[in-house]
């Protein structure tokens, strides 16, 4: 009986406590922690429900490589990058710091989520 319980637990435990970022989540920590705030998590899944890729990656000119955009709060306040929408009109304003700056301490900039390759997942 005990052996069976252990076996069952071993099977169920990974399903009960998986730790996995959502596919396409991007951690942005170019300046955040140096400035004393949590790193940013950008969830692709949330944004692509509402905007086609072309809006950010063409109209706003955001490069498709995590860490290559050098986004900081001054640029956001000027209406660039996230600030094109996060201005209190299209989406919540940048004054809601904690909604973007929501990551655990110590995370490095990069694309996260399930399927790692040598490429984007490692940037």
């Amino acid at each position: 009986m005990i052996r069976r319980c252990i076996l069952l637990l071993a099977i169920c435990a990974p399903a009960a406590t998986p730790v996995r970022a959502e596919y396409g989540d991007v951690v942005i920590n170019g300046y955040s922690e140096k400035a004393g705030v949590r790193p940013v998590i950008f969830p692709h899944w949330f944004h692509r429900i509402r905007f086609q890729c072309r809006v950010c990656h063409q109209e706003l000119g955001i490069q498709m490589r995590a860490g290559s955009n050098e986004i900081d709060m001054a640029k956001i306040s000027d209406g660039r990058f996230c600030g094109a929408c996060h201005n209190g009109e299209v989406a919540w304003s940048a004054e809601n710091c904690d909604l973007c700056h929501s990551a655990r301490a110590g995370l490095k900039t990069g694309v996260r989520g399930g399927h790692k390759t040598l490429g984007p997942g490692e940037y």
Partner: protein
Amino acid sequence: MARLQRRFVFVALLCAACSVRGAGPWQDLADDGLHDPAGPGIGVLQQPGEALSVLPQDGAGNHVHWVKALRDGFITPRHALADEPPPAIDTTEIIMRDTSTLPFVRFPHRAHTEWLDCTICHDRLFERKVGTTPINMGAILQGKYCGVCHGAVAFPLTECNRCHSVRDVPVAKAAAPP
């Protein structure tokens, strides 16, 4: 019999405990290894399972078939912030035949231009002329060419057959862009 009942109850409780963590394959934000569970935003942000479980399902990535979700009107993402006419959709397909023992690759412009502008890929990632870009899996796996998106945000590179999907196409039928 009592012993059997006890076992049944135990297994039922175990299964219930396993299913507590949200429905489907989506991780709650507080448990995803990225979000700080103590952060003030955690109770405000939308949970992936809430948003994604109502969209057409898929077996990889976000477990959402994004192309189907867009085409079938499950989602209506904006194509521009500025007031612009809808983008042009390119429906040409390219068959790539230099695939060794794997099936040929069928590249559908339609699924891509429904989301992206031509200039995002051309000519930074791919030359416009068919056959002039040295696309290969080694480079893709390192995040180049298709691998800029596939493996990061578009369906992952474990889905070989979605691209390598054409077993045999006569040369005359292989579509090429004008």
